[in-house]
């Protein structure tokens, strides 16, 4: 599985989305992506890429696209 597939899968499984418009996904933009969902997403990404994110990055992780940028800091290229 590519990093992009893993990344997309984390969103789909966490927020129970079938075929979302990934680039438009934003924090609080879908019902499931609330503060609780956010931590579930972080957990899914940390598991998928074996990383441990900094709190500042968790706070900054405001959208699908922003998340791609943040993961670069952890040497995860998507």
């Amino acid at each position, binding site marked *: 599985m590519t990093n992009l597939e893993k990344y997309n899968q984390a969103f789909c499984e966490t927020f129970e989305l079938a075929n979302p418009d990934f680039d438009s996904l934003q924090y609080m933009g879908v019902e499931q992506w609330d503060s*609780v969902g956010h931590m579930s997403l972080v*957990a899914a990404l940390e*598991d998928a890429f074996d990383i*441990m994110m*900094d709190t500042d990055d968790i706070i900054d992780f405001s959208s699908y696209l922003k998340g791609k940028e943040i993961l670069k800091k952890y040497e995860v290229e998507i």
Partner: protein
Amino acid sequence: MLKNKNVIVTGAGGGIGLATVNKIAENGGNVWACTRTKTEQFEQDLQNIANQYGVWIKAVYFDMTNESQMKTAIKEISLEKRSIDVLVNAAGTVYNGMFTMTSISKLKEVFEVNYFEQIYIMQLVARLMMRQKKGSIVNVASVSGIETTEGKLAYGSSKAALIYASKTISKELAQYNIRVNALAPGLTDTKMNKEIPDADLQKVLDRSSMKRMANPEEIANAIVFLASDQSSFMTGQVMVVDGGRLWS
């Protein structure tokens, strides 16, 4: 009480910390024993405890004021892919000084260890516990964080802050089945308290019902209770273990 539970203990090289490691092992729990400095004595102590009770105990070294080291250590623990059932925050530093004689840099130094880094390690470990949907966090505060005493500005207010944090975090983590409690020990017979002048020590002891210091094991017993399922309906509480000092 802790059979097959895996526990992270910070400040494991200290009096209360090491007694807690011992008591957890006695109750069947495994331990990541975290301390700053590696010594032969510490490693030997852990080995002896592990052998005595047939559990595993791993030494983990990091400085509580170094977030990068702390994060690396917790990540390494997480990569072991074991459940992390309990976090005991027993690391701490003490400073006694009157308000007028406490520099802001000293105040920050005390808060760094007794508050900010406790919060940071809770953030790291709680995220792992949230995935498991279970966990127990025990923060070792102090009665100094409840009573107001001259000369305790730095230490007392840092422990008061930790008590507040324990309560508010307990509300946020309850939905993940993670309990958070604080323990407020009174004077305990540890190396950290050896520097208290005899007259000051006696003054505190005279105010308490039991007129003596606690043994570290007595504090460890209370920690194990809060860590275990024996306290499964307790969260956001401060357990005072002070020989009748605070409200006597």
